[in-house]
């Protein structure tokens, strides 16, 4: 498989390979994972590439161990990632919550396949959208990104690392199986044009250091193990030094910081692509490969004079509430197309004002096949 990083020239690249190139350009230094279809190429490529660059690769005994090792490596200072699919993502949920609670940067790629359970290992589905949001127990904000092209697999992997380092939290990259295994011609940007973010390191003496220091931006510098700042990390609710607490005010403090470091920075985190939305009377809401089918359908429909557009979230969590609400204000109908039994539709309904939209239409497909442009076009004709 080609993983040569040629700049300025088109290369034929597979989605999973694009993720590895993005990860390497973002500076990944540790991968811990467990084989699972359809994400395995990511592990295979990094098993080959990381040792060559002095990076660390380990195939763990299961996905629980994989994310644990990833978090451990990040605590010791390395940019770390894992890649999996539904069943493995399920196993990772507890430690994913640990990473959020203890504010450890890392990237988790979930190449979605049909579920539940073993489901359809080699077929696409968008069934893990809600699991990405609420899979781990307890209140928590989540950052999850959703690419729709091979180039975006590369770009959003870098962005996932950047956001995780900046906001000190695990970031999920949700991918469609089709993207993971599809090949497209891609022109990669030159490395010096990339914006790569590294976690902020403390510049105070160890005795002043607090691992979760309070500050107005809710983001504090982070020391790594072995740098002379000795601190405690626990999955228990903790105070700003990292020690367990049950004091209600301190519990509130921690919970608020976890939430607000995300919700105070929505403008920075949320990315959304509007497509022909300026004059759209009908909107389609879709992510990933479904959005590609939607774009094709929209081009066909526009030829017939139907004013239809697309809202495509690149950031699926936090949900782009405000953008979606604004863009749907002037439309009379919205078609929510998704490869599941209805996960995004409830989010779109939630953010649109009651009574504003009398018409929600759904395309829900969960038989292991992609929603085609034709299917979307037929629905557009029905709505128009």
């Amino acid at each position, binding site marked *: 498989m080609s993983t040569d990083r040629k700049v300025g020239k088109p290369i034929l690249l597979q989605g999973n390979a694009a993720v590895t190139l993005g990860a390497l350009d973002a500076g990944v230094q540790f991968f811990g994972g467990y084989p699972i279809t359809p994400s395995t190429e990511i592990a295979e490529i990094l098993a080959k590439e990381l040792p060559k660059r002095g990076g660390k690769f380990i195939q763990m005994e299961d996905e629980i161990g994989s994310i644990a090792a990833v978090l451990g490596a990040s605590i010791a200072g390395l940019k770390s990632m894992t890649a999996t699919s539904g069943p493995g993502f399920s196993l990772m949920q507890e430690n994913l919550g640990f990473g959020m609670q203890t504010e450890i940067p890392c990237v988790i790629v979930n190449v979605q396949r049909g579920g539940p359970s073993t489901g359809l290992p080699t077929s696409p589905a968008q069934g893990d959208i809600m699991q990405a949001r609420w899979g781990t127990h307890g209140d928590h904000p989540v950052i999850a990104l959703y690419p729709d092209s091979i180039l975006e697999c590369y770009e959003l992997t870098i962005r996932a690392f950047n956001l995780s380092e900046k906001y000190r939290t695990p970031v999920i990259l949700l991918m469609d199986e089709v993207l993971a295994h599809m090949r497209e011609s891609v022109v990669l940007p030159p490395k010096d044009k990339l914006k790569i973010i590294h976690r902020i390191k403390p510049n105070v003496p160890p005795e002043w250091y607090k691992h979760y220091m309070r500050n107005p931006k809710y983001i504090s510098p982070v020391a790594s193990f072995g740098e002379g700042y000795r601190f405690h990390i*626990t999955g228990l609710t903790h105070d700003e030094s990292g020690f367990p607490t049950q004091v209600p005010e301190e519990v509130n403090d921690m919970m608020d910081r976890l939430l607000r470091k995300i919700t105070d920075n929505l403008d920075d985190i949320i990315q959304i692509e509007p497509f022909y939305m300026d004059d759209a009377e009908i909107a389609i809401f879709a992510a990933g490969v479904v959005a590609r089918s939607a774009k094709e359908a929209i081009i066909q429909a526009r030829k017939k004079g139907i004013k239809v557009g697309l809202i495509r979230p690149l950031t699926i969590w936090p949900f782009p509430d405000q953008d979606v609400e604004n863009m749907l204000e002037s439309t009379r109908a919205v078609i929510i197309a998704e490869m599941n039994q209805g996960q995004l539709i409830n989010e779109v309904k939630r953010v649109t004002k009651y009574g504003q939209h009398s018409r929600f239409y759904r395309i829900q497909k969960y038989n292991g096949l992609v929603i085609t442009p034709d299917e979307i076009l037929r629905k557009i004709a029905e709505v128009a």
Partner: protein
Amino acid sequence: MKNIPQKVIHRYLRHDKKFPHVWCAGCGNGIILGDLLRAIYNLGLEKDDIAMVSGIGCSSRMPVYVDFNTLHTTHGRAIAFATGIKMAKPELKVIVITGDGDVSAIGGNHFIHAARRNIDLTIIIVNNNIYGMTGGQCSPTTPIGKFATTAPYGSIEPNFDLCELAKCAGASFVARTTAFHTTEARQIFEKALQKKGCSVVEVISQCPVSYGKMNNMSSAVKMLELQRDNTLPIAAYEKLPEEKRAGKIVRGILHDVEKPEFIDQYQKLVDSLSLQKQDESKKEDKSSKSEESKSQE
């Protein structure tokens, strides 16, 4: 002022932060932590160079009390987190503190795989034969016939021999001691900490509150006496005639071998790949130079 006593443990405890501790009166955890700190002191290890990682349970609360790089993880996963830390920063001395339930029930998989890889971790298992923190449920080391809240009629399951398990899975250093034998425990910890490879130390401990109460041993002293009377050093055990061995628990270093260690092996791989790369780039240099000279001709 001159005569204020300074004990070794005072150098390491987070005295202003996390006391009083969570452990019950009579618990073995404090004794074992003291032994470990004295071992660390004797070896002259720097606080900054130690990462102490634990899972969930009574013994897993140890790291919060000591002034190292400390990590209190999820149930059973301490070894997997420690694997990531050790790979990322091999220069750290990574100590895993775990209990019998944490390491051999929910975390059994990570335990055997760390032993198989022979990764340089010091894994200290505090074995009190019970889940103490949740109030006395049976664990994989609760002896057959003994009582627990979830074995109200006596356990019908055979129990694990943790040392045998570690040895069979590939750990290069395996030892057993007890909370009673503090000098021996410290000496074994010193050896385990110096060993390059996966070293596993099982420390038999007492839980008078959860285990003892249900099994007619609610006094910590009585339980410590049993540790003294029911165990014997491996040399003495081997001299014992077969018929007298039943019910005796062997102490001491049970297994100590030299074998390839995982982090070393990984570094060798990285080194060999970078040598290969250098060779290739030299070849490329030569070939491009020869092409240049040809074109000049």
